[in-house]
């Protein structure tokens, strides 16, 4: 068995070390096994499939190698440009607003006041309820005939006539972003709230003594301390939004006329609507490559702190 000893130099031969620690691997083996089965193999298989034409029967023995044809099909399709643009709009704005609202909420909740725990709990509810339920709730709120939002806006004199959001090519994506932000700003809030607890009071007091006002204290003391958490939060939100399937799928199914179609819904539609696994795989690989680039920064942001501590 290994020693629970920290930071021992490791210049002994790799094989020797592996043998020394052979029992340690037992602890991670179950986790590793599951991960291999459900992660490594699928990634490999997606790459593999992306070079084949697959039959609608999904009898994989009948697949035909067709080189980069699937990629050409994806990149050359009429909708690719629009879907890509939708994906960017969806991902960037969702991330931006979730972060801003989360940051604001965290800053307010970081003060001590009565009922703070209750308030935090209430604000967290959208985060924990199922995205499916959320989609139906908002679909009902947005309902063009009986939706409460339209009625309230009409009463306030902000619109005349019916409010039509989900069937409106220009409004559908922003409307979905509102739902998405509603669902995920609490995540940003709680991450940043956790980060705020690492800001040393001494520094804030020092800044106060130095004559810094509330804004300057935030800008010069709080924000630099939050940098790490903010980077991680943004990356997590970004990845999550890029992969977000449920809200557009249930609320609009990508419509009207593809105005709320994003990569992920498109891939699902190609794979399980049209049963074109080959093309969908090629699409997935493209998405995958984008993720790898983002993932590189993600891991770098995560390890950055650890490396700095090590020196």
């Amino acid at each position, binding site marked *: 068995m*290994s020693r629970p000893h920290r930071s021992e130099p490791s210049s002994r031969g790799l094989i020797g070390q592996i043998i020394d620690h052979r029992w340690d691997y037992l602890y991670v083996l179950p986790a590793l096994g599951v991960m291999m089965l459900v992660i490594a193999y*699928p990634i490999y298989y997606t790459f593999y499939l992306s070079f084949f034409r697959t039959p609608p029967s999904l009898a994989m023995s009948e697949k035909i190698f067709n080189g980069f044809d699937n990629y050409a099909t994806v990149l050359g399709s009429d909708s690719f440009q629009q879907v890509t643009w939708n994906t960017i709009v969806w991902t960037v704005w969702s991330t931006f607003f979730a972060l801003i609202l989360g940051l604001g909420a965290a800053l307010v909740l970081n003060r001590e006041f009565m009922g703070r725990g209750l308030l935090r709990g209430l604000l967290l509810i959208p985060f924990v309820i199922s995205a499916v339920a959320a989609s139906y709730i908002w679909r009902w709120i947005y309902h063009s005939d009986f939706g409460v939002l339209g009625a309230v806006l009409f009463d306030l004199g902000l619109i005349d006539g019916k409010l039509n959001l989900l069937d409106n090519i220009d409004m559908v994506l922003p409307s979905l972003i509102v739902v998405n932000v509603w669902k995920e700003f609490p995540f940003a809030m709680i991450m940043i709230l956790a980060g705020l607890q690492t800001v040393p009071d001494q520094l804030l007091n020092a800044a106060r003594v130095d004559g810094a006002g509330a804004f300057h204290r935030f800008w010069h003391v709080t924000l630099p301390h939050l940098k790490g958490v903010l980077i991680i939060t943004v990356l997590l939100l970004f990845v999550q939004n890029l992969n977000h399937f449920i809200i557009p799928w249930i609320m609009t199914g990508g419509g009207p006329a593809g105005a709320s179609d994003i990569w992920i819904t498109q891939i699902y539609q190609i794979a399980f609507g049209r049963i074109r696994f080959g093309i969908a795989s090629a699409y997935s690989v493209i998405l995958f490559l984008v993720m790898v680039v983002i993932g590189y920064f993600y891991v770098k942001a995560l390890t950055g702190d650890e490396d700095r501590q090590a020196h």
Partner: protein
Amino acid sequence: MDKRRITRWHVFGWIFLVFLLIYAVTPLLWMLITSFKSQFAALQYPPDLYPKNPTTEQYVRLLSPQNDVGRQFLRYLLNSIMVSTVTTILGVAVAVPAAYAFSRFRFPGRKALFFSVLFRNMFPAVVFLMPLFIMMRWMGLVNTYSSLVITYLTFGLPLSIWLLKGFYDNIPVQLEQAARIDGCTRFQAFYLIVMPLSAPGIIATAIYSFITAWNEYVYALTFLNDDQKLTLPVGLQRFFTEYATNWPGLMAASFIMSVPVVAMFLILQKYFVRALTEGAVKA
């Protein structure tokens, strides 16, 4: 002068908070209000902001095994409970030793393994959907709960391991050393001393696993097509038809579906926040 400026920020903060609260809570309230309306009352324009004749008929219908809808709904509920519970138990059983090993041991490849575990978070569910679907078909697992449990396990594992590792990092090694000198085997030291101390982390991890499994939609949608086997998120869709949707029924079903996870989360949010603080912030 400084004092007035702080006050201004305070006021601004409160206004912001009220706005946020309205944004976060009103949709939930509207779900509740609608669920207590009759189907007829819901389809009124302009809508009543509170139910004039509140009725629990939707809940009665959903929760009574006497009628078809109720039987179906209870079936889905049971399926969801089963899949989520099994996933949670297995998830904790797998994550605890792994997180402990990542925290305590220094074996070659430890760092790479750890990040490969985290890397899972990066990949879109859909990338895994097709190969897993083919794999599950090949293994004859389509339409089984096993297919879901196996997949959900890997959803939860990366963050679970990450969160738990943070907890173990904060438990001094000397406690285990003391226990081993006091007569424990390595396993007893872990089981008798470390486990109880990491209970908050384990609870948080379990909640997290449960909620993710409970709310999962894409895999359940793809892997299950037997009407009797659906989980709630997918089953909900069955109540929704394009023309004659029963909105109060849908809202009541959404509410019932949200109650367990929200209740669990609110009661245990302290642990969850602590887990996030200890795990996430320290990375």
